[in-house]
Structures are given as C-alpha cells and as structure tokens.
C-alpha cells in the first residue's frame, strides 16, 4: 500500500466526486430541501460540496447524507457492467470498456459519505433516536460502518469497494445467469 494525497485521488477519479455531490443534490431535490450552493468538483479540500438548508425530518437528513452510497454504488455497477461483459464473455478489453471501467470504479470509490456527512447525520440520529425514530436507531451501525470504511480508505478500501461492486459482482452475476 502506498499513500497518495487525497486531492490527487479526487482528481484522478473526478467522475466519482461529481456523482457524489449530484447524489446529495438529487436527494435534496427529492425531499424539497433548498440547495443554496453546489460545487460538483474543484481542486481543493473538499473537492466538492452541497450547501443546503437543514432538513426538516430525519428521513430527509438520512437520505441526503447516505444518498451517494446508493447512487454511486448503483452507477458504479451500471457503468462497469459493459466492461465486465466484454471482459467476462469476450475475454478481452477495448478502449471503450476500459474507459467505462475507469468511470464506474471512480464512481464506486466515492460512494461512501464523507466524515462531515456522517458527522452531521450522527448528531441528527442522536436527536431522532431519543424520540424513538426507528430509522435513526438502525442507522447507527450504518454510520459506524461508514466511518470505518472512511478510516480504511488509507489502505485503499474505497478503491477495493468500487472494484468489488463494479467488477466482481457483475462478473459473478454473469457467471450465474449465463
């Protein structure tokens, strides 16, 4: 394992940053939460952000914070599938499938909500859980898991996650189906 500065990784995998912020914004739109400012990608830390009004309920907060995990994972599988298809069935790779593989894995790498995202969610989950909100109660383990995943990103866990859901899962699916 070797260390690469975060901004270099973010630049090399910028489609994932864009999709990550777009996922936050998408759930803001779906939940009617006003978005004041959005930056899909920039060179700096953070490499993207969405500034929105405080969500009115925990479900909105949960979806906005966790949104990238769903959207990025889904799009990672979607864009990697043609690549896996060519690799698995054709036993070869071409430029287009290589490009889609890069796009897919980049998106998958940025699936995990940032520490800031889960930090905000943690605070709101504590308040909501004190009111016995079931989603808030079951969200604690997920938040902890995301925090661990973020910690493990120093050993490329985010990359392995992207490769796992983008390459391994579709190939296994093809293996089972065909």
């Amino acid at each position, binding site marked *: 394992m070797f260390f690469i500065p975060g901004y270099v990784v973010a630049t090399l995998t910028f489609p994932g940053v864009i999709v990550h912020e777009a996922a936050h914004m998408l759930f803001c739109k779906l939940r009617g939460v*006003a978005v004041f400012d959005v930056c*899909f990608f920039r060179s700096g830390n953070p490499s993207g952000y969405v500034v929105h009004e405080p969500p009115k309920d925990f479900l909105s907060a949960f979806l906005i914070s966790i949104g990238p995990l769903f959207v990025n994972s889904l799009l990672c599988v979607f864009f990697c599938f043609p690549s896996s298809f060519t690799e698995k069935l*054709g036993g070869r790779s071409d430029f287009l499938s290589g490009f889609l593989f890069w796009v897919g894995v980049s998106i998958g790498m940025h699936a995990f909500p940032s520490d800031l995202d889960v930090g905000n969610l943690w605070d709101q989950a504590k308040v909501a859980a004190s009111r016995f909100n079931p989603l808030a109660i079951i969200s604690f383990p997920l938040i902890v898991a995301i925090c661990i995943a973020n910690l493990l990103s120093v050993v490329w866990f985010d990359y392995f996650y992207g490769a796992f859901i983008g390459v391994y899962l579709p190939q296994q699916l093809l293996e089972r189906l065909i």
Partner: protein
Amino acid sequence: MRHAVCESCGQEYPSKETFAAFGRTLCKPCAEAAVNGSQQGFNAGDIVRNTDPTVCEWCGADFGDSELNRLGNAPTCEPCEHFLRHRPFPRWIKVSFAVLVALAALSLLKNYRFLEARMKSKEGQAAFYDGDFAIAAKRLREAAARAPESPNYGFQAEFYKAVSLMAADKPQDALPLLVNFQSEAPNEPTLQRLIFSAQLDAEFQEYGSESMLKMAELHFDESPADASAETALAWANACRYAETGQDQYHAAAAKILQNGRDEARSQHDLLAYGPRTVYCLKTRERLSQSQFWRRFSPKSERKD
C-alpha cells in the same frame, strides 16, 4: 426596502448594505475602518452583514414593506424559494450523464456478439452432454464465428468435431484432431482417454478385434488404477466376443462390468462404452456410438 443609519458616520444606507459590527450598525467603509482599527482583532460573528426582510437575498427584488419568508435565515421570495428547492442540475451534468449512458449502451451493443457466442457455446455444451456431438460442434463453430478473438470456442468446436467423428465410428479421422489438442492441453485426462479410445477403435478397424484386445490389455497392464482403461478393456473383450462368439471374452467383459467402478462410467462414458458393451454382449452386434443413440433414443434414456 428598509434603510438604516450608520452609527459612525450618520449617513443612511439600504439595510442590506450595512453591517452589525462590534455591536453597532455600520456602513461598509466604517465597518472596514473599525476592523482595521481594532486592537484585539475580531472573531467570527463579530461582523455580520445585515439583511433586509423586504428584499430577496437571492435575486435582490424589492418587495416594499412586505416581509419575506426566511430560508436558511435569508429573506427569500417565492420564485427563488421554488428555484432553490428544485434547483436543476446544470446542463453539462445532464449532457455528460447522457453521453456516458450512450457509451455504455454502445459498448453493450458492440460486444453483444460475445453474449451470442456464449449462448451458442452453452447450447453446444448441452448438445454435447445429450450426445449430439455433431450439433455441439456446429454450435461451437457458430460461437467461434461470432467471437473469433476467443480461441476457446474454436478449440472446443474442433474438439467436439473430433468426438463427433469418433461417435460416427471414424476414429482415423478423429485421431489427428485429438493429437493436435495435446499441445494445447498436454495433461488433460479426458483428452488422453479419447486419444486412447480413438487408437483402440482405429486398431479394430485396421487389424480386427484380436489386435484391439491386445492393445486394451497392454494399456490396462500399464495403468491398472485407471478406471477408463478397465472400461476400454471391457469394450475390447465385447468386440472380440462379437467377432468370435467365444464365451471367455463374454465372461471377461461381463466380469469387468460387474466389478466396474462408477468412476469409469462417469469419466469414460462420453462415447457410451458401458451400454454399448452391455448391448454387444447381449446381441454380438458392435454399434458405433451414433448408431447406438439413434437406435435407443438416447436423450430420453439419458434423462431417466
């Protein structure tokens, strides 16, 4: 629009252009002067720009004396609130996403032939396991035509062709094809067994059952642990029995079948040696694999 008076210079400004700085309402120049003259510096929150509840923070529209709803503490008119709550994605995001989806679709369409090849290959394999070796070879040739970059399909097609030739009792034609595969898969046991079977059948066709039996015995002596050598020996004895009618060969073949290991059946029954041997012992008729299946409706029997 509301106005405020600067507590430092006494001039009137629109409220939006004034600041709450160090507990006083100041205009921009006075606020800057206060900041520059401050001995202790300042903290976040010491200087805050004032808002005018009658002017939209986002579009700057003036609503006279009507106070606007606040959104995130900023006075916001209805059109701006609607925009912020339903902020559209930028066009470049939509276009980029559409292009990527189109590229993914293009990649799938371009490589769809690999799926077709795989399906043909699967059909070929199913036909192979049903004993339709000629159909299996045809399907694999179709697969190879769709995916010429995948050498496995061509390899499999040739292999199935060789097996179909053996099934049609043409071992001399099958033998060169099978021997060619040895360079590709030198230690593949199924291939070794098929080559031996082809040699055995070729020996029968060229020199008769006696020579074939000697060959089978020799092979069995060399590899007594090889279950397929045992099966081949049974088949050779049955062929000898078919030709001579002598009971000793019948007994030898029957004994091997009786004691035969399941392993032999599963590994070596590609060409139906087991049932063909049994049939031969009953009728003294030596049938090729294809003749045997044609006569006894192999698919339905195999499924039983």
